[in-house]
């Protein structure tokens, strides 16, 4: 579903993604773990079509990233999502659903606690509320390729559990999910496989807690 082969991406003369190859199958959640600056966000941006590849190949369900077909089936939760500050929550959801040719998903809005704050302007939301809104924007058009950059940021424990349930449902429905995270528990509990990135390079990938512990315990571990 999400195919990344030999991806290279440079910025300011430095390779931020260096020859990375990953495959995410339908119904699979792959976690990208790594320290700050490892290249997780850049990798997700390349898959979403927001950043240009310098070399390599990426395809989303057979479509090149950033193409209209790929955009219809891809959802991205960005690390620092810029939201339309002067619009209300309900207006924002309706706008982006409309751009995908759909109506807003009321059930999703309810599960993410957005219905209760539907009439608030985005610039009045807390960090957690903004994160939930960004998540809704990423998921409401029912994408089959889901890219998440630190999805649990600013979420309270209850919402984290809801998020986990939501992703599990999407996985069950056959979506391919690529998720960047710093959270050990999230990585272990949600992901089928973990991919370790460091300085843009893929160091290892495997299921299980060991990999997560190896990296997330701190620098100096091989």
């Amino acid at each position, binding site marked *: 579903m999400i195919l990344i082969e030999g991806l290279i991406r440079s910025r300011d003369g430095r390779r931020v993604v260096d020859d990375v190859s990953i495959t995410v199958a339908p119904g699979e959640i792959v976690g990208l773990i790594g320290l700050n600056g490892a290249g997780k966000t850049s990798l997700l941006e390349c898959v*979403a*079509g*927001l*950043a*240009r590849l310098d070399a390599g190949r990426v395809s989303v369900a057979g479509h090149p990233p*950033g193409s*209209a077909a790929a*955009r*219809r089936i*891809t*959802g*991205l939760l*960005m690390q*620092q*999502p*810029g*939201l*339309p*500050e*002067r*619009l209300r929550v309900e*207006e924002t959801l*309706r*706008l*982006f*659903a*409309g*751009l*995908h*040719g*759909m*109506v807003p998903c009321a059930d999703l809005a309810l599960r993410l606690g957005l219905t209760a704050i539907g009439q608030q*302007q985005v610039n009045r939301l807390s960090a957690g509320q903004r994160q939930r809104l960004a998540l809704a*924007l990423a998921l409401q058009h029912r994408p089959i390729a889901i890219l998440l950059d630190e999805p649990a940021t600013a979420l309270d424990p209850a919402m984290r559990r809801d998020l986990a349930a939501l992703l599990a449902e999407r996985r069950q429905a056959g979506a391919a999910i690529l998720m960047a995270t710093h959270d050990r528990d999230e990585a272990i509990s949600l992901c089928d496989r973990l991919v370790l990135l460091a300085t843009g390079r893929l160091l290892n990938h495997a299921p299980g807690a060991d990999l997560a512990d190896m990296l997330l315990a701190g620098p100096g571990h091989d």
Partner: protein
Amino acid sequence: MTEGPLWPLVRANLLASLRNPMALIYGWLFPLLFLAGFAALYGDDPVPLALHAGQFFTITILGSAAFGLPTQMVSEREAGLWRHFALTPAPRWRFVVALVLARAVLLAGALLLQHWAARALGMPSLPHPVSTVLALMAAGLCFLCLGAFIGNLVPNVPAVQALGQCIFLPMLILGGVAVPLASLPDWALPFSNLLPGRHAVVSIQTAVTGTGTQAAGFELLALAGHGLLALLAAVLLFRWEPAARLRPGRRGWVLLLLIALWLALVAVAHGRQRSIPAAPDIASAGQPADYERSRPQTAAAPVLASPFAAPTAVPAVAPPAVAAPPVVAATDDLAAALDGVAFERLPTDSGLVAPIADSPPDAVLESALARIQRQLAGWPPARSGSEEQQVRNLLLIAAVPDLLQMDPLERHLPLLVEAQLQARFAAPALQRLLLAIALHPDAGSVAARADLPALGLPAHAGPEPALRGRVMLYAFKLLGRASGRRVGDPSPPDDKPEPDPTQGE
């Protein structure tokens, strides 16, 4: 059921702007403050505010286009908002068009407020409201497309200010927006064709004080051309991310084609450069005594002065403090009275003051004149009051357009008025009436100037003395024509010897 593809984006942009206090202050309040300053500066100027409408409306449009829209685009892009839009299937052209349309709605609000404020400050009602709206729409959309191009070109907000000024200031100074084209040196005129400012001013001004859309057809087309080219370039070079490079890539040839088309448009505009109407002449028409044969032509004769001169400029000759009473009077001996009028001292028919056409009107003008003639049949001031007042009212039809420099219509209206007068009054009576009006310009009422919009002409709301002066001049001129003393401009002296009639073939 989902909404149409464009409307959700337009609506979202509109809502975001309407809920942004700073956007409303810059977009709506500033034009009003600017207009107030304009009126304060030119408050004592006899030139009506209507004569500057093309300029102050264009400046409002320019501000929104050169700064408002690009600033919005760059800040939203820098904030990462556009990344969400980049992830939707919406094509980028739709996004750009939505930005332009939303801003156009805001601009329409600003122009409407400015128009109401101008009316409150004395600008008369619009004689051609549809044409005015069309001209404003054309100028607004053109400039906003240019603004979208700027917004896409620059990487950050400070650069918007820099590039905006690079476009805004030249258009103000060289584009006929703040400085009239007639005041520019010849070498600067070709530069005015590079940008659409002059087309906007001409098309709007023609609608406000001219004959309407038809007379500004090329300008409207030029605005459409500039706007379309700018929009295509904006879409071609569009980028969702601040760090993305401007790379047309495989579509680079399209960009070259757009540049070529733009140069072609500039060349056509340069080739068609219409004669720039001179700055409005608000010179004093003098006094009746100035046209008395028994008195020498004095320094109080009409002096041309431009309202666009520096504020400290003074007329070359100051008018006399006290008007000398006319020696020529409307006596029973009409012929003697006419002998006392120095018709040759009147301004030339081909000049700027009280002009009269010496050639037939073109099709556009003919249509406009026919319309005025039809509406004149039911115009109340033409039949109310004394005969002298009726004639005075009819003379306003020539005098007001002359003051407002409604070229070329102003040159043909005196002939229309002449025909009306000849149809309604016998020749001797008409001559007496015209003489009486010419000798006593301060008599009677000029209130009918407010009724001119019924004829499709702008009302006059400026100082009365200037208007009465023009009425006086036209009264003299039509008197000259009616009496045969002066029909057209005097011929220049012929130095050639007359042919000897005794010589055979």
